[in-house]
């Protein structure tokens, strides 16, 4: 019998809201959005955590510019705080080394992280999800009560994949916060239609920000970007009103 799932509820009980940034398609801005969202929430005074569950493509540490993230070992693993955000990722343990993992390893590592991480009181725990409908998504649904923020772009393939993503979330009775379109071109949006079709909120559009890349790796600079301001006005606002 695996002892770890039995303690996860206890570990998460002082977290008011968990937001899993997903969407299905790769490369659509899940990691920048989850990272910047956590920075924006912390900056607004909320107790915030960021959990990177994209083990095979972990990138939030790069976006934050985080170094020396090894957690403190107390009666569990206490996450390091970076710019006000409590940070946990597989890279806290692997640093720069590549970590190829199969499905069972992924499930085991997620279970372990959730069982040992002591988040303490949080208003928000933001999760960066990997692309796809694989183990991580299913484990996140089964092991924790997350609210999903489904990301899209104006691309047809992205919207089609997001549709399947929403279907799986629905079948699993997972909560969906809404659909957020990234890299928008301001045109009438297929993402909005998607949200309407499933009767879930359309949170809004985030524009392509040519200055974003330059700010990656520097949390203070990230907060100054137009991207961050848009995340704040669209997403952070929606979360507060929930």
């Amino acid at each position, binding site marked *: *019998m*695996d*002892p*770890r*799932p*039995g*303690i996860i509820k*206890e570990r998460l009980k002082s977290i008011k809201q968990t937001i899993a940034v997903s969407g299905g398609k790769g490369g659509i801005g899940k990691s920048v959005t989850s990272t910047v969202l956590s920075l924006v929430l912390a900056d607004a005074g909320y107790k915030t955590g960021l959990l990177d569950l994209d083990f095979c493509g972990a990138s939030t540490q790069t976006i934050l510019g985080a170094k020396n993230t*090894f*957690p403190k*070992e*107390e*009666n*569990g*693993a206490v996450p390091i705080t970076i710019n006000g955000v409590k940070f946990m990722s*597989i890279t806290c*343990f*692997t640093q720069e*080394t*590549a*970590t*190829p*993992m*199969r499905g*069972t*390893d*992924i499930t*085991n*590592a997620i279970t*372990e*992280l959730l*069982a*040992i991480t*002591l988040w303490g009181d949080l208003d928000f725990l933001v999760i960066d999800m990997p692309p796809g409908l694989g183990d991580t998504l299913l484990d996140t649904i089964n092991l924790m009560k997350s609210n999903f923020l489904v990301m899209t772009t104006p691309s047809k393939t992205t919207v089609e994949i997001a549709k399947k993503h929403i279907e799986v979330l629905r079948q699993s009775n997972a909560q969906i916060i809404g659909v957020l379109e990234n890299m928008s071109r301001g045109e009438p949006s297929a993402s909005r239609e998607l949200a309407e079709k499933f009767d879930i909120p359309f949170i809004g559009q985030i524009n392509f920000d040519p200055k974003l890349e330059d700010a990656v790796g520097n949390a203070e600079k990230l907060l100054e970007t137009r991207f961050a301001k848009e995340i704040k006005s669209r997403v952070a606002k929606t979360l507060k009103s929930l």
Partner: protein
Amino acid sequence: MHEWALAEAVISTAVEFAEKTGFEHITEIEISIGELQQIEEDPFLFALEEMLKEKSKPVDKNTKITLEKENAILKCKSCKHEWDYLNALNELDEEKVESIHFVPEVSHAFIKCPKCNSPDFEITNGRGVWINNIIGK
């Protein structure tokens, strides 16, 4: 000392088990600890006993804990070679062992198949903390 966190997991799982099975008292919890996670037995046992002292039925100070070590066996998915983690342990520095101690799957970053150098191996045995048996009445 994150052994404490794992001890808490064992206790809460035993309590949940008692609720499910209707056991009034858990008399014994048999735990195996896999070598890969390098759990320190004494602090782990100490944590379990401290927690049990504070509890009342279904688990309490009369609940017996038995610990058994399990060798960690790794098996290469590419060439099928099997080896014992203890052979690899000597070559890892303290920081890496510490990382594997927190999350055993991190071993995929630091250990390669000694035959073919692939990082694609399976942990077939002795990963971490496991409850072998819960005895109650």
